[in-house]
C-alpha cells in the first residue's frame, strides 16, 4: 500500500464522535448491582402491577442460572453485573410529563443538539418519535393523530398500565425470557422502550421512531420494544441511538419483539451510533441486543434494516421466524468497524411455513484494528415446502490490521426448498480509487464514495428521511471529520 493510502487511513482512525457530550442533570438511581431488591425498585418506580413484578423475578431466577452465550468472535473482559446501575431517571420523572412544559429544558436542549427537536412546532414532519433518556421515556410526539386511527404508540411502561392484556399475551412470546442470558437479563430489569399496536387493516401513515440516549455514567440501558401488527396492517419503525463519550464501557442489552399477523408488514430500521470508544479502544458501549420477529400469519412480512457504525462491541442478530405460509423475512445490514471496535452481527431466518422466502444482504467494512464478523443462520424445517433463501454477504477490508469474517450456517431439511448463498471478501479496489481521483476527487472522498456505493443495496432500504443521514454517517465513520 502506498504512503498516501496509509496517511488517509490514519486520518480515518482519528474518528470524532459528535454526540459525545454529557448532559448535566441530576438523576435518580437505586444502589449499584443486581438482586431482587433492584428489580423490586424498578418495578415500584414504574408503578407496575404485581404480575409484571412476578414476570421479572421469574426471568431473574433464570438469569442467575445462565452463562453468557459464547459463539461470537468477540474479545472483552468479563462483565461485572454488580458494578452497574440498572435504573437512572432524570429527577422528577416519577410520572411521565404530560407535555413539554413539564420537561427539564436541559433535556429538550439535549435532543435539539442531537437533531431530534421535541417541540411540537419543530417535530420531524411525518415522523412520530418516542424519546428514551437513560431508563425513561421522555416524550412521544404525534400521539393524538395516531390515536384517531386506533394506533397505540407509547412507552412500554405506559402500555403495561393501560394495555395489560396485550402485554400479558405478547411480551416474551417471541423472545422467551430464558432464551439466553442477555434476554433473561433484559426481561428482569428492562426499564423503558416503545410499544406499538397497529389495528387490523390500518396502514400507519407515518414513520414511528424511538430515539435512545444513554447519559448517566455506569448505567446499563435495558430497553424493551414490542410491536404488534394486526391483520393487514403496515408499519415502518425506526430506532436511533447515541451516548456520551466515557472511558468506562457501558452495557446496553435491549430486546425487541415483532409480531406480524396475516397480511401484515413490519419494517424495522436501526441506525446504531452508540459511542464506539476512542482510537485506543478505551470506553464505548457494549451492545448486546436481541431482536426477533415472528411472521405469525399467512403472507406476513418482516424486514430488518440496520446501519451499525457505533459501539465498542456489537452482538446482534435480528431474526425472523417465518411461521405463516408465504411469509417473507428480510435482513439488510451495513456494519462498519474502525479502531478497536468489534462487531459480530447477522441474522437468523427460520423457515417453518410453506413458500416462505427470505433475503439477506450484508455488507461489512473493517478499518483500523477492528474485527467484523457476519454470522447468520438459514434453516429450512421439514414442512417448509418450496421455501427460498438468497444470501449475499460482502466484506471490504481497508488497511491490513483488521479482520473480516463470514460465518454462515446453512441447514436444509426440505428437498423442495432452495438456498443460495454468496459471499466475498476483498480490499478496496485500487482501480476504482484511481478512476475517482482522476476525476478530481480526493483520496478520502473517493473511499467514502466507493464504500457508500458498496453499501447502497442496504442504504436504499431505509426510509427516505433517514437514508441521507445514514449515508453521511457512513462517510463520517470512515472520515474522522464531521460533515
Amino acid at each position, binding site marked *: 500500500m*502506498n504512503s*498516501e493510502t496509509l496517511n488517509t487511513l490514519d486520518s480515518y482512525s482519528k474518528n470524532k464522535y459528535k454526540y459525545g457530550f454529557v448532559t448535566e442533570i441530576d438523576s435518580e438511581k437505586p444502589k449499584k448491582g443486581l438482586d431482587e431488591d433492584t428489580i423490586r425498585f424498578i418495578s415500584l418506580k414504574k408503578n407496575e402491577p404485581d404480575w409484571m413484578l412476578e414476570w421479572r423475578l421469574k426471568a431473574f431466577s433464570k438469569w442467575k442460572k445462565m452463562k453468557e452465550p459464547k459463539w461470537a468472535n468477540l474479545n472483552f473482559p468479563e462483565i461485572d453485573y454488580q458494578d452497574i446501575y440498572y435504573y437512572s431517571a432524570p429527577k422528577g420523572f416519577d410520572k411521565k410529563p404530560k407535555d413539554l412544559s413539564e420537561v427539564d429544558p436541559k433535556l429538550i436542549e439535549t435532543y435539539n443538539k442531537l437533531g431530534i427537536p421535541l417541540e411540537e412546532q419543530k417535530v420531524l414532519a411525518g415522523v412520530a418519535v418516542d424519546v428514551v433518556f437513560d431508563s425513561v421515556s421522555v416524550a412521544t410526539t404525534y400521539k393524538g393523530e395516531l390515536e384517531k386511527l386506533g394506533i397505540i404508540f407509547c412507552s412500554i411502561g405506559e402500555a403495561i398500565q393501560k394495555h395489560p392484556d396485550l402485554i400479558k399475551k405478547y411480551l416474551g412470546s417471541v423472545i422467551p425470557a430464558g432464551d439466553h442470558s442477555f434476554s433473561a437479563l433484559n426481561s428482569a430489569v428492562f426499564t423503558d422502550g416503545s410499544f406499538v399496536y397497529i389495528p387490523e387493516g390500518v396502514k400507519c401513515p407515518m414513520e414511528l421512531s424511538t430515539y435512545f440516549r444513554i447519559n448517566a455514567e455506569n448505567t446499563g440501558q435495558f430497553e424493551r420494544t414490542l410491536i404488534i401488527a394486526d391483520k393487514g396492517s403496515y408499519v415502518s419503525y425506526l430506532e436511533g441511538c447515541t451516548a456520551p463519550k466515557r472511558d468506562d464501557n457501558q452495557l446496553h442489552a435491549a430486546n425487541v419483539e415483532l409480531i406480524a399477523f396475516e397480511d401484515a408488514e413490519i419494517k424495522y430500521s436501526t441506525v446504531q451510533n452508540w459511542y464506539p470508544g476512542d482510537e485506543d479502544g478505551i470506553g464505548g458501549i457494549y451492545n448486546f441486543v436481541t431482536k426477533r420477529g415472528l411472521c405469525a400469519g399467512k403472507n406476513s412480512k418482516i424486514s430488518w434494516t440496520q446501519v451499525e457504525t457505533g459501539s465498542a462491541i456489537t452482538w446482534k442478530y435480528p431474526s425472523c421466524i417465518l411461521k405463516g405460509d408465504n411469509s417473507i423475512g428480510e435482513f439488510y445490514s451495513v456494519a462498519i468497524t474502525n479502531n478497536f471496535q468489534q462487531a459480530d452481527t447477522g441474522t437468523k431466518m427460520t423457515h417453518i411455513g410453506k413458500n416462505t422466502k427470505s433475503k439477506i444482504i450484508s455488507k461489512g467494512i473493517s478499518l483500523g484494528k477492528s474485527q467484523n464478523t457476519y454470522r447468520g443462520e438459514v434453516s429450512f424445517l421439514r414442512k417448509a415446502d418450496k421455501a427460498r433463501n438468497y444470501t449475499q454477504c460482502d466484506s471490504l477490508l481497508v488497511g491490513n490490521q483488521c479482520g473480516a469474517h463470514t460465518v454462515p450456517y446453512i441447514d436444509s431439511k426440505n428437498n423442495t426448498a432452495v438456498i443460495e448463498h454468496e459471499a466475498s471478501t476483498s480490499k478496496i*479496489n485500487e*482501480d*476504482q480509487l*484511481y*478512476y*475517482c*481521483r*482522476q*476525476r*478530481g*476527487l*480526493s*483520496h478520502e*472522498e*473517493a473511499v467514502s*464514495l*466507493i464504500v*457508500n*456505493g*458498496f*453499501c*447502497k*443495496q442496504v442504504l436504499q432500504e431505509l426510509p427516505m428521511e433517514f437514508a441521507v443521514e445514514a449515508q453521511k454517517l457512513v462517510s463520517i465513520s470512515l472520515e474522522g471529520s464531521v460533515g
Partner: protein
Amino acid sequence: MFLEIKDLSVKIENKNILKRLNLNINKGEVHAIMGPNGSGKSTLANVLAGKEDYEILNGRINFKDNDLFDLNIEERAQEGMFLAFQYPVEIPGVNITPFLHSAINSKRKRMNEEEIDNLSFAKLLKSKANDLGINIDMLKRSVNTGFSGGEKKRYEILQMSILNPDLAILDETDSGLDIDALKIVTDGVNKLKTNDNSFLIITHYQKLLNYIKPDYVHVMVNGSIVKSGGSEIAAEIEKDGFQKFQ
C-alpha cells in the same frame, strides 16, 4: 510550454516500458499518438494521470508550469488534466450524477471558483448528455456499471465535456464504437476544442483521424516515439501498418 515530456523512462514489474520518450504539446494543439498494441501508449497516459504502480526511472514532465511529479492524481485532475480511460472501471452503487457533481466541484474549489449547485448541475448534465446522444435514463445508473463498451466510451466523453479540461488524453476512445457513435463522440471533442486547450489522442486506427484533425501525429514503437509529422503519417500507417517503423 504547456506540456513537456523530457527523456521519460518508466518501468513496471521489472519491465522497461517507456524508453527516453520526448513529447511537447502547446496550447490549442491536437496531437495523435499511434502505435501497435503493447507499445506503451496506455502506460504514457497513466503516467501522465499519476497512476501509482509505475517506477519513473528517468526524465521529467512539466504541465502548466508545474513539475507534474509534485502533484498527486486528484491535483493533476483539478489542474485540468483529463484521461478518458481505455477500460473504464465499474463502480457499483455509485450514482453517476452525484459522482460527477463532486468531481466538478472539487475542481472549482481548487480554482477558487464558486461551487455549482444541484439544480444548475443537473441542467448542465442533461444538456451535455443530450448533445452526446446519451439517454437521460442512463444518468440514473451507477458509474460504468453494466454499460456496454460503447456506452462506457460515450460516458467518458460526457465527463470530459462537463469537466472541460485543459489537456484531454483520449486512450483508444474510438475502439468499440460504431460509425454513428464515433461521429457523435468526435463531434463532442471538436465542440470542446478551443485555442486554450489541447488534446492527446491515442489510437491505432487512422479512422478516428478522419473526424478529428490532428496538428501532429507521432508513431510510438516499443516505448519511444520513432517518428513525428503531420496527418500524412497516419495515411502511411493505414496503408503499410507499423512494420516499417519497427
